[in-house]
């Protein structure tokens, strides 16, 4: 199999694993997200554990991956170069958070088909 095709298939598989993680974690259910953000109601802490698990693993493996000369299937690492903590960051994050709280969907779960398959009744 040629390497371009391998790279494509692996990217598809990676996207699927990501979606699977979102689904199992409960992030594809807007009510679950809203319950997590509902500090003044029946707070559900589950999503804090989703993030904690993902970030702890990320903190552990990222430095090890970035110590390599290059990624496995690409010539070099492409990481954000912006470092500034400025108005667009603060304002954008606030607007994002308002939208996230209003419907309980962030971009990943929103791209998964969050409308369920019609149930036969």
């Amino acid at each position, binding site marked *: 199999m040629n390497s371009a095709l391998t*790279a494509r298939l692996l990217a598809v598989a990676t996207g699927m694993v990501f979606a699977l993680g979102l689904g199992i974690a409960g992030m594809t*259910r807007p009510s679950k997200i809203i319950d997590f953000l509902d500090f*003044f109601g029946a707070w559900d802490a589950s999503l804090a554990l989703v993030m904690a698990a993902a970030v702890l693993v990320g903190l552990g493996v990222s430095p090890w991956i970035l110590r390599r000369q290059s990624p496995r299937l690409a010539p070099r*690492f492409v990481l954000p170069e912006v470092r500034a903590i400025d108005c667009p960051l603060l304002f954008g994050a606030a607007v994002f958070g308002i939208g996230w*709280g209003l419907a309980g969907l962030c971009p990943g779960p929103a791209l998964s*088909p969050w409308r369920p398959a019609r149930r036969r009744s």
Partner: protein
Amino acid sequence: MHNFTPVSAIFGGLLIALAAAATLFLHGRLAGISGILFGLVDALPDGLDEARRVFYAAFLAGLVLGGVVIARLWPLAFESQSSDGATLGRFAIAGLLVGFGSRLSGGCTSGHGVCGLSLRSPRALVATLVFMAAGVATVAVAKHLLGLIP
């Protein structure tokens, strides 16, 4: 606290971490969904950076495909929303805010909240704290004060 599901939360988080680590290890990129989506939109017209465009498109195809698989195997991962005007309007406005905000701040829950924090980026930490606080405030107001969210 209700509906607390620690086991599936941790397991789901580990899968997200696996996908993020694989993206960095194989393709040298961050698995931030808004970044990938906007990256694809930006890369469409120029047609120059073929590898980048192909990676973005393939990853997003996998994300959607993964959603289809979950919907087939485990429909309870998704929930139906009522289709009245108020709900549709709320989702439409929320979608606009999520798109605008993640574009402006350069990341979303996955880009800032998972990948950025994993790289110890102060920028991502600030963004994450701000969008969490904004989300909590929004639910407090929209749900408890205004009754917009059932």
